[in-house]
């Protein structure tokens, strides 16, 4: 019984560690992904990452000309019939050129995280 509890706690801890590690890897991927699109505006921040098999996320923050902090989170949902995006909660269609830009960005992202992250830790 006691052994069972210990094993259970160990398994939970192991799962928690894996989940933590997964999140850290994702954060690092997002940072690398943010560099795929070139320089970020002064005072801004950008993240681009693959959340899961069907979702890519682009988050951008900047300070506008009035000194106000602005942000846009774009979530691309990859569906069998096409790609749609939601920006700050509003769904919008994705044009052909934007679709191809997303694909190219994702390919660069894949290459960069492989070279700059997983080649070191694998």
């Amino acid at each position, binding site marked *: 019984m006691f052994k069972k509890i210990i094993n259970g706690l160990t398994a939970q801890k*192991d799962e928690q*560690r*894996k989940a933590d*590690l*997964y999140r*850290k*890897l*994702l*954060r*690092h*991927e*997002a*940072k690398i992904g943010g560099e795929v699109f070139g320089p970020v505006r002064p005072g801004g*921040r950008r*993240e681009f*990452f*693959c*959340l*899961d*098999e*069907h*979702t*890519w*996320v682009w*988050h951008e923050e900047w300070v506008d000309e009035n000194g106000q902090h602005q942000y846009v*989170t774009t979530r691309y949902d*990859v*569906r*069998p*019939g*096409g*790609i749609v995006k939601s920006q700050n909660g509003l769904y919008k269609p994705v*044009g*052909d*050129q934007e*679709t*191809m830009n*997303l*694909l190219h960005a*994702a*390919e660069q992202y*894949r290459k960069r*995280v492989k070279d700059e992250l*997983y080649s*070191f*830790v*694998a």
Partner: protein
Amino acid sequence: MILDQERDGFQPAKALSEIGPFGGGISEVLGTRDIVLDSSLFELRKSAEPARQRLEAARRAKEQPNDSPHYAAATAAIERHARLGGSAYTTVATAEHLGEARQMEADARQFDAPIAPELQTQPTEPVLSDTERKAAEALQLIDDIHNSTDEQYALGA
């Protein structure tokens, strides 16, 4: 999920250094991430293929406008229309690509707008006068042009 480097205290070097103690768990986590990335790119490529084809078709149409069947159909229709006496269309036949043809077609539709409603209902009535028949034919040609350019637009031009 919005990642916050400051809030989460995340530093790349720190993260890399922290990976060590997880030992055998690393391969499993990395393997999972690899599968997610590969699957995601596969899905993305598959979903983007129609868009790629439309862009490629548009690029070809732009580079080789005279080879486009839609362009040829539109040009032929405009030339026929011009022969019917529509002086406003005589320069259309020299349009260099579909974008111009479409603009011309839009102008033509505007030009013919006053006669369109009546003739659309009975375009082939034998009681029409020569002038009306010519106008009906012109209207049909304009519709042909319109359909051609719509198809071209559907291809992503």
